[in-house]
Every structure is written in C-alpha cells, then in structure tokens.
C-alpha cells in the first residue's frame, strides 16, 4: 500500500494516547493557573478542556501528573509549553471549552508530594 508520494513522503502521525487526567494550564509566564482536564496527548500536541479559553496562537503552559511512584512520596509531572492551535466554539456540557495545543518544549519533573 503506497502511503506517500514522490513529493510528499509518508510521515507517520504521532501516536495519540487517551489519558484523562486533571491538568493546570496558564498563559506562558502568567500568574494565574486554570484547571482543566486532559483528554488525549501525543509527543506533538495535547487536547484538553477547561473553563478558561485561550485564543489561537496563545503561548501556554500545561502541567499534569503522569504517575505516582509506588512506595514513594513523589510523583512525575509533565510540564509542556506550546501554542493553542484549535478551540471549539460550542461549550460542552458544563460550559468547558476544548483546546488543542502544540507541544514545543516539555519536561518530566519529579516533585515531592505535599
């Protein structure tokens, strides 16, 4: 099966992982964090919902807990930075907005839990 062409070689799409999780997000460098829910994420982007919607191209940071280490008092957090590339116009049930962001920079951070 030919998946690309001579001019446009086939580039596999990044695997998207369904990963429902609470997230916090804010304008990059901003003071105010907003709460939301991650729906899915790949190495190149994340799709999440939140009551505070940012406009397209806004530079944002997104943080969520990836996993809690068994038997330890720490957890790994994913910290992403990127830009909003898509937002929905109609709010889902409950009034939250859906947003998609690119992931241009990321870090896996180990943090002690309170």
């Amino acid at each position, binding site marked *: 099966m030919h998946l690309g062409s001579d001019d446009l070689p086939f580039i596999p799409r*990044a*695997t*998207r*992982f*369904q*990963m429902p999780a609470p997230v916090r997000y804010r304008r990059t460098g901003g003071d105010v964090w907003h709460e939301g829910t991650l729906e899915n*994420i*790949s*190495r190149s982007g994340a799709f999440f919902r939140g009551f505070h919607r940012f406009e397209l191209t806004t530079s944002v940071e997104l943080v969520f807990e*990836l*996993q*809690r*280490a*068994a*038997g*330890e008092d*720490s957890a*790994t*957090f*994913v910290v*992403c930075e990127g830009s909003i590339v898509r937002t929905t116009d109609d709010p889902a049930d409950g009034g939250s907005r859906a947003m998609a962001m690119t*992931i241009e920079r*990321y870090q*896996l*951070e*180990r*943090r002690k839990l309170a």
Partner: protein
Amino acid sequence: MANRRAGVRIVIADDHPIFREGLKRLLDAEAGFTVVGEAEDGRHAAEMTRALKPDVLLLDVAMPRLAGLDTLRDLGEQCAAVRTILLTAAIEKAEVVTALQLGARGIVFKEAATQLLFKSIQCVMAGEYWVGRESATDLVDALRNLTSHGLETQGRKSRFGLTKREQEILSAVIGGYTNKEIARQLTLSEDTVKHHITNIFNKVGVSNRLELALFAVHHRLVESA
C-alpha cells in the same frame, strides 16, 4: 464513503432474528446511523457486503453457512474499505488476534451497553480500532491491548524485548530522573545511559522521552501507586 444525509451505512449480520431486529431498531433510532441491510448467515452477509459496500458491517461470530471469521476471510481484500466489527458473546484471545489479522476493525461483546456499540462504530469510522471496551489508535496498539489483567508488569516489559537494565532505566526516566541522575544511581556513564535510552526508543517505537513516558504509562510498563 458515507452519504452525509444517511450517515454511517451499516449492514447487520446475525442469525438470531430478535437480536437482529432489536439492533436494527436501536441503530435506526440513533442519529447518524442507517441500517442498509440485514443478513441471517455468513454467506448472505458476504454477498450483501459486496453488493451494498456499507461503511460498517456488524458481524456475529457464530453464524450458520459461514461463521464470522470465515466471512471475513471470504470478504478479504475485496471489501477492505468496509469496517467490520465482530459481535460476540464470548471469544478467545487467539480468535481476536485472528480477526484483527483478517481485517476486523473492532470486537464488541453482546453484553455491552448500547452506547459502547455506538462508540465503537464512531471509533472505527475515525480510523481507529475497538477491542472489548476500549479504542486503540492502530492495529499494533489493538494487539498490544490484548493483555489479561493478571499479567505482571515484568511480563509486559519483556513483551517489548526490554532487558533488565533497560527496564531499570525506563523506570528511572518515567520517574523524572535526568540522564545524569540515572547514570549516578546505576553507576554508569551518561553516554551508556543515552545509548540504553535510544535502544528503548527503538524497541517500543517512540521518538522522544515524552512519548516514551506516555507509552509506558499507557501500557502499564512501570509500577505505580
């Protein structure tokens, strides 16, 4: 391609008339779905699918005159565009693998809630796979998802061919440790750690540390609280 006014065009193949009729009524009542044909056995299902070329074929596994899997074989490449979802009361894991290899896009249990069936149809229409109660982004993911809940994490890791050392390093990466910290913990050079991580990337098919972390958590390759 689905007629946008008619929505998803579906053929139902099941040898139990009450089940078939009930399923037809549920689907016809749901916006976006249209039942365009019904078949009472596998041979009729194959003929109808070739003739009507539906978007989705809901195919009972246990049917007379050509069982579900044999129907899939019969349809083969001719109807590759038709997304087949197998409906079954029970199925062996080996049969699930065979079904996916024969081109099935989904397996749904008959005891499942109606909404789950609707969701499975939407998923396969979006190009994904559906096995049991969850979607999978691609065939490899679908096959990998065929793990019993009793499998040990260690068993999962070795399924991807990771060595003991690679498993240690994977756990450390997911734990948020830097290459330098991992090297210190395991008494290795940083270059050796990087080499191991590259091997892990290649074995599980990911491109960077973030994707590795997501992959590992998604496939439960690390112990977590």
